[in-house]
């Protein structure tokens, strides 16, 4: 009994000393700023900054390889905090960007090529003759972007086109990267006029494939007072494209477009997710709009 107590006490003392030395000798210096920045970031780990999660971004900032204003969800408030921690100037704040779907060819408008049976994944459907719609540029409509969105701001509409909630969208770029058809783009929230078509085939083919396709008639190009919209020809057909730096949201092209391929949306609340008067009940920048609090 006594022997056991003594031997255990001696062993404890020896190990304690070893651990104590090891703690001093092998100590890893952690920059306290990394932790501070990680705490300041929204914590959604959306990856929109291009780094592996918020922790990865924080480390990159401290090392100096990342810009201070790369966090999309965090907005100005987070940028100011980071700037404060790093003791640097935050610079110009970027305008909020939201995801826009560049296709309006839902099940009711686009001509179907075949009936798709299988797992609900756009990539899988794309391997089957480029998707279940005749238009090979269109939104496939199986909702892979919904799974990709870390903020739950995309829902599926009745016509099997995703609906993006601009108030919740933080511009993290996830859906843009995930979409196999590249029909989602990130565009400044202040821009309201969009060409809801990605078909680059000739007008006749486009019209056969979808009721609301851009038929390359150039009416928008001729009527735009700012010269902001033009049919960019790629040789095989082309597509009306808006130069957003010139567009003034006047909406003349929307009225002129014979197929309603151009659409003007209701103004988006530019600071939507940071204000309390929106649908969100929270005001904290750390909120990632998961909706659990409701």
């Amino acid at each position, binding site marked *: 009994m006594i022997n056991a107590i003594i031997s255990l006490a001696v062993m404890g003392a020896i190990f304690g000393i070893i651990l104590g030395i090891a703690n001093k000798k092998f100590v890893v210096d952690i920059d306290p700023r990394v932790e501070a920045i990680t705490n300041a970031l929204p914590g959604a780990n959306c990856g929109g900054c291009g780094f592996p999660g918020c922790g990865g971004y924080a480390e990159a900032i401290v090392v100096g390889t990342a810009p201070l204003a790369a966090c999309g969800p965090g907005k100005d408030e987070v940028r100011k905090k980071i700037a404060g921690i790093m003791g640097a100037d935050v610079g110009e704040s970027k305008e909020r960007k939201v995801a826009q779907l560049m296709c309006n060819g839902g099940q009711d408008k686009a001509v179907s090529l*075949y009936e798709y*049976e*299988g*797992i609900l*994944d756009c990539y*899988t459907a794309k*391997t089957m*003759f480029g998707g279940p719609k005749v238009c*090979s540029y269109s939104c496939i409509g199986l909702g892979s972007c919904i799974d990709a969105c870390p903020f739950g701001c995309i829902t599926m509409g009745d016509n099997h086109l995703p609906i993006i909630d601009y108030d919740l969208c933080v511009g993290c770029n996830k859906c843009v990267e995930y979409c196999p058809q590249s029909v989602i783009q990130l565009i400044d929230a202040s821009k309201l006029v969009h060409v809801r078509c990605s078909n680059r085939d000739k007008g006749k083919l486009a019209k056969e494939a979808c009721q609301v396709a851009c038929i390359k008639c150039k009416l928008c190009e001729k009527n735009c007072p700012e010269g902001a919209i033009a049919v960019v020809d790629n040789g095989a057909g082309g597509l009306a494209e808006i130069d957003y730096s010139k567009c003034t949201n006047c909406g003349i092209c929307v009225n002129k477009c014979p197929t309603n391929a151009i659409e003007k949306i209701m103004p988006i609340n530019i600071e939507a997710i940071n204000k309390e008067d929106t649908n969100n009940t929270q005001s904290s920048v750390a909120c990632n709009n998961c909706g659990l609090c409701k």
Partner: protein
Amino acid sequence: MNMSTFKGGTHVPGYKELTQGLATIPAKIPNKLYIPVSQHIGAPCIPLVQIGDEVKKGQKIAEGKGFVTAPIHSSVSGKVLAIEKKQHPGGNFVNCIVIENDGKEEWAVTVQPNSNPEELSSEEIRKIVFEAGIVGLGGATFPTHVKYAPVENKQAEFIILNGVECEPYITADHRIMLEKPERIIAGLRYKLRSTGCKKGIIAIEENKLDAIEKLTKLCELEENIEVIALKEKYPQGSEKQLIFACTGREVPVGGLPLDAGVIVNNVATAVAVADAIELGIPLIERITTLSGDGIKKPANYLVRIGTLFSDLIEESGGFTGDIDKIISGGLMMGKTVFTDDIPIVKGSSGIVVLKKQLGVDGKEYNCVRCAKCVDACPMFLEPTTIVKLAKRGLWEEAEKNNIMSCIECGSCVYVCPASIPLVQYIRRAKLAIGAARAKARSNGGKK
């Protein structure tokens, strides 16, 4: 009889009685043929002809760049009408050279019988095989000349001719073994000579006893050719499983059959090789089985490449009422196509037309963790685990579980009591991993 086989796999009903006793019929040559410029693994070919050109039977009309490619020849003599995009049995839209058949059947001047095939060097044999546009006719369409190209420090010991044909419904290889056994052996001899292999094996499943007997008899006098009968099991026709069944060797993960000292080829490919070497005929026709309960008269057709599915179906008397699915290839690994307006390509071993099956709702239920898929997997993977990861988009973890070794044979889906389309999830994950690897490669290249 003590017959060898591989581990894992499943027993799928063959449905071969529909066509296995029917002799091959030369299919009617249609007036218009659509020859896709991509009929092999590798980059698509570039057309050598222009609209309005006159072409002869066997004339080269498209060729590709690089090593892994196979030229494409005209199946008929006639005129090039157009080069247009058309559905391809592989599940995409591919440029097709449309040729109007003039019915004269004139051979091109390049098609000349070889006066002395016994004296060709291995280099020359490979060149002829390449020029004839021969690809693996089992369905994978891997260019044959690439398989025979010598690789440093690797010498193949065996050539296995694959006459297993484990896919349900398809009997194209069975018929070619019964109808052209001498040509198969002739082709195998050229292959053995060109690669310096010691031994040739012709592997046949036990459900084709007549073919086994016939080939065994013919091979009695051949010293270095052996016919092996294998137990009936799916997917025995898959390269890696066949190698194990015949030689007991395993191909290492991520390796090629050559790493196990084996080259595998289809029996129909051997016939094409013999035709190309002795007669100079390029690959312009193949045997295709048209079968299934949705077709009036199932049959084996000798068909020209570029014939439309609809032409063959019409020749067989059309559909028996409402059909549910047209499958290009076999039932297990073939691709469902949405129309019969699709040309037959070098890899089209069969077309299966099915009527609506009763009691099949196609609904996916939850995994009950019965591990039937684990037992069935011939690659010794854990499909249930891999799919769980793939469903969550955890591509890297799936890769660690060797998802890239999956041969997509569909054994797991066949045995799954919860009807989970495991292979679809696995294909999705493989696409993502492939894209990630390509991205990593291009990034690495930049640095």
